């Protein structure tokens, strides 16, 4: 995975990007969730050994935050795509 296919700019060297961590949607109503569920959201990780949906940011390029599906054992990226702005942040 030396290359990442930025949805705006096309394939670029990984060093242009910042890794944003695994996709971890924020609970829609934080004040309504139980303490344990909230802790799970802020601390617990799937730490997937396999295909992981994750955030990347094109720091040295178009400054897009986008999503990628990457196999964490091979670093092969099967797909990069825009966050779907028709959805709510929390979907």
């Amino acid at each position, binding site marked *: 995975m*030396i290359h990442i296919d930025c949805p705006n700019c096309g394939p670029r060297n990984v060093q242009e990007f910042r890794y*944003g961590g695994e996709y971890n949607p924020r609970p829609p*109503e934080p*004040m309504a969730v139980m303490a344990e569920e909230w802790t799970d*959201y802020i601390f617990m990780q799937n730490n997937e050994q396999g295909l992981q949906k994750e955030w990347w*940011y094109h720091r040295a390029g178009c400054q897009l935050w986008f999503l990628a599906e990457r196999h964490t054992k091979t*670093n092969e990226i099967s797909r990069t795509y825009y966050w779907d702005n028709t*959805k709510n942040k929390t979907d």
Partner: protein
Amino acid sequence: MTQQAKNRLSPQPGELIDREKNITFSFDGKTYQAYPGDTIASALAAAGVKVFSRSFKYHRPRGLMCCAGQCPNCLVQVADEPNVRACTRQVEANMNVNSQNAWPSLKRDLMSLTSLGDRFLPVGFYYKAFIRPKFLWPFFERILRRAAGLGKVSSETGLGRYDKQYLHADVAVVGGGPAGMSAAVTAAEKGARVILFDENPRLGGHLRYGLSSMEAPLSELLDAVNQSSNLTVYPNTMVQGWYEDNWLSAANGSRLYKVRAGSVIVATGAYEQPLLFDNNDLPGVMLGSGAQRLINLYGVAPGQRAIIVTANQDGWLTAANLQAADIEVVAVIDERPEIKDSLIQQVIADGAAVLWKHTIISAEGPGKVSRALITELDGDGKINSQAKYDIHCDLIVISVGWAPASGLLYQANGSIAFDHERSEFLPQSLPAGIFAAGRVSGSHNISVQIEEGRSAGLQATAFLGISEPLTEAERVGLNAQHVEEPRRTSELVYVPGKKKQFLCFCEDVTKKDLDTSIAEGYDSIELLKRYSTISMGPCQGKMCSQNTIHLCARANNRTVEETGTTTARPPMSPVPLGVMAGQNMEPVRLSSVDDWHRARGAKMMVAGLWMRPEHYGDPLAEVKAVRQRVGLIDVSTLGKLRLVGSGVPDLLDRIYVNKWQKLEVGRVRYGLMCNDEGIILDDGVTARIAEKEWYMTTTSSGATGIYEWIQWWLQSGWGEGVQLTDITEINAAFNLAGPEARSLLQELTEADVSNEAFPYMHARDLTLAGVPCRLFRIGFTGELSYEIHCPSGYGRHLWEAIMMAGEPFGISPFGLEAQRILRLEKAHIIVGQDTDALSDPIAADMAWSVKLDKEDFLGQRSLKRITEEGPQQRLVGFKVKNGVPVPEEGLQIVQDGNENRLDIIGWVTSSRRSPTLDEGIGLCWLPVDLAEQEGATFTIFREGVLIEAQVHHGPFYDPDGERLKL
């Protein structure tokens, strides 16, 4: 006296040296002659030098073996450069070459006495020795340590000059032998942009160092390469690593190439392998390819009376090569049953005796080869341990097989497995876009190599969609040819004997060491490697990995397949740190006023990526100027964000812990940001410039991170009606502070800047000294002050204009140190200094800014819990009495604990002597119950002495903030 080149042969057809010129260089203090094109080793060998180094553990003399930079035997020191491979480094005039790891000299190395005690020094002996008494271990360690290591470094060595270059290719071909050249030419013919890398100065690979009968295919291939228009050759360039997505690193001298290729063809050849027999490391024992390199590339005789120990055609080729160079071949010792072909007949006709089904049992010295003991193999290949022949010779040539140079294929996650038919580890399947050709895939026959190269070239271009894929018929034909080749690599590997048989030359690991290790339980290939250190040295397994797998399998009664392989990691050969590093590329960020600061004698300091003035000579005078008159500080490093749109108030409400909906146009507000854990991320002020336009500042160190943080939220659901632009570098920013600030400001503008027209916590756009500026009336210093933002291009002009207009007011520039004192007198926190990665605003005494009654904001859920549970620690101000030293930042706050111990209950985050108040002040973390009592005393531990301090709430200076509002 210059040493004579007694071993120099008459000119050889393909030699690389220029006999018209002479250069001299020194080795261990003696002067030697060389021709341009010679390597250090070839010139020394020409002069009759046999011993090039001493071995790592036993300090045994070692001579040339591979002549290809693969084995560790000729590592030398060239001036202050350690561990140079003498056999591949070209000689330069006046080069100062010295041997390594020998004392007092290469010839008489006292450390070789370790050999005498070797029965007490089995493999891993240091794990079993020096355990008790414990206090003696450091002493023994020093001795061990002194004995270790090869070359020397010098602290006097000056800076190196290195650079890097990016290359792009459709097809990158690694290795310029017949397969590589053929692959490159084919791919280029099909229209691919091709790069061909070869570690040697000239293309050709084994065609160049092999017999002159190979000239025909070589010149054909060279012509084809030269005529190819879209093929670029990089000679002297070793491809060092394969990384994901066909990203290669390659080194040539002081340059690192970083290569992006569409497809990679690996044609890296193979390493000829040593045979294990008694004294198989004696100088004069050489690999066939090594002997051939000396003869054909440099016109140097590797010896005068040779025997060839072989198991394949390569040994006979070497024999013929020696004979052609008028070197006597006494005998060819071939482990195979008799074979008849024209090459063999020719060698015998030229005077060599031949012993079929025989092999060598021992090389005899002293010091260098003088005799070889030969024994017989019976019908089952069993070895008779009694020597049958004793042959006088000074050169023992070993040609018993090859280990494919598959390092890059391993790195590319290729699957490589043992092929019993061929007795080699060959690629089984390779990832898409990676192809192998030539010896690395087991092909030793030149015509097969060329054909296989062509096929790889076609497959690579087909993979890229440039050409048609290979037809099934072509593929089948190629495979058939491949399989028909006779086996080149013997499985004999080891001839039992009585003396040392070296398996790993780098680390002096013997066959016996291997057996011992396995018997002790280090029986998997990885454990064996780690325990015995086999393959951990300079050659990284090139000379020993394959043999180790065979011997490990036998010792465990397992098959080679079950035993498996070890992987190869980059680099393929050792690369200097300087080459990896390239030029120093550590940039610093400078403000638009940087030159002015330096001209004014500022002491600059590193602040993140920025260089900032710490002070201009006297920080206390700078503090005084701000408190009494007026000062100017460069705060261009602040993060500056422009937010536009109707959604901004909602966004600010979500990312700050305080409220923003009602901030009026022209007003400024302090804001604190947290993450969802409730941890403080950053702080700054944000102004509402117009109904839908906002201007945010962040801390200097947080600028990039906060911009990206906000972008993330904007781009994942909170972005409606908000445009965000980072203008950190677009605007310069200065803070004009002090009681005279307004009077000075008025000098520079026609606008009304009176307290009524431009009150505290307001923002105004004004023209100052002709420059359009944005001003915020805020004050980190606690004085009447204006933060002035203007386009960076005008920064220097505006700064000078303010300084000039300020002269009558007694203006002084001030630096970070003065600012820290000034803010501390006001008890303002610095995020990242007074807080850390676990500080929340409740504990940091900023609960006042947290509005839990807002709608959803970042950190709300966690901060609610923290508020309910209450923090354990609190950030609070303190004072120390006059005459008491000011406790340094980082000191710990203690109380009496159990067993006469002092328990830590807090620590000092900020402290200074306040010149304004003339007392020691600071901020610290304390347990909440203590922190809440104004005036409570506590103790700070300083150099063994306890200092008493007092809790202080609120600002130390101007607690009601009146001076800000003047």
